[in-house]
């Protein structure tokens, strides 16, 4: 009892903040390691549709992305609002997809080619015509594993 009273009279000792930088650094390293910087700048606005039967896309290094949507606002003056395809960092036409798949394959190990997936990130308002054209090109390029990128959720 008396011990407590003594402490109380003296007031609370200041909590040492010397380890605070260590804690913050730990958090910092965690976020630095987990961060995935977006490697391509999107020229098309994409809001993927919602779905429930979704699977996670594994092995990101083996995934090539095809973006489809209408150009973002600052590009609309020069490219209009019609839906367009974006491969890497530029707008592309449907004919360029085969070439794109070929370059993606060259960059990978030969053993990994059968596991390569093409993720179609298309806006929910896009018409199926353009998607079908893309799918046909992918069939021609023999890139048969595809993934329709979706968000989790229901309508």
């Amino acid at each position, binding site marked *: 009892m008396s011990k407590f009273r003594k402490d109380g009279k003296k007031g609370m000792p200041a909590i040492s903040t010397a380890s605070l930088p260590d804690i913050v650094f730990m958090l910092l390293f965690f976020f630095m390691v987990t961060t995935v910087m977006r490697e391509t700048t999107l020229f098309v606005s994409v809001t993927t549709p919602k779905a429930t039967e979704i699977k996670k896309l594994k092995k990101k290094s083996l995934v090539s992305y095809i973006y489809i949507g209408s150009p973002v606002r600052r590009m609309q003056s020069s490219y209009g609002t019609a839906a367009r395809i974006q491969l890497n960092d530029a707008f592309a036409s449907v004919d360029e997809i085969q070439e794109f798949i070929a370059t993606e394959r060259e960059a990978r190990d030969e053993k990994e080619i059968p596991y390569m997936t093409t993720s179609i990130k298309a806006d929910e308002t896009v018409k*199926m015509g353009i998607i079908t054209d893309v799918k046909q090109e992918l*069939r021609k390029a023999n890139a048969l594993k595809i993934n329709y990128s979706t968000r989790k959720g229901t309508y």
Partner: protein
Amino acid sequence: MASKRRGLPEINAGSMADIAFLLLIFFLVTTTMDQDTGIARKLPPMPEEELQEEDPQIHAKNIYTVLINSHNQLLVEGELMDISQLKDGAKKFINNNGIDPNSSENPEKAIISLQNDRGTEYMTYIRVQNELAAAYTDLRNNASLNEFGERYADLNKTQMKEIRKMYPQKISEAEPKNIGGDE
């Protein structure tokens, strides 16, 4: 002079935390934790031109036709259907097992044929794909609960294979036509 004699003074590390915080907040803001998710599908290979394979004969009753027009309306087996009913309709068709003579003989023979218009919205297409996948997921879950007492996703590989054999997911996509409406 006095400090020199005492050796180098300690560097004040008090602001270290502030710098670290600044960096931390930058990474917190730029981090995108979202994992890419989506509906996985496999495209059929291009048919080889010389090798004209004979079409295997499939009874019309084993095919569940789903058509989507450019106004995002569904025509299922010749009748207009709301998208919310598609899952139950597909489940009933797949699990018919010959009860209804005009529906599928058994789940292994059941094929879902999907055809959309070039003007169909992608959102509707994905919803239809999702509903059909959900129908199969439900059936597989039921079957695996009966067989192994576990959900399909929790089964091991051989068990999964067995269930997949019972309910093979056969969704065939025809090339799109301009089914209705011009756009």
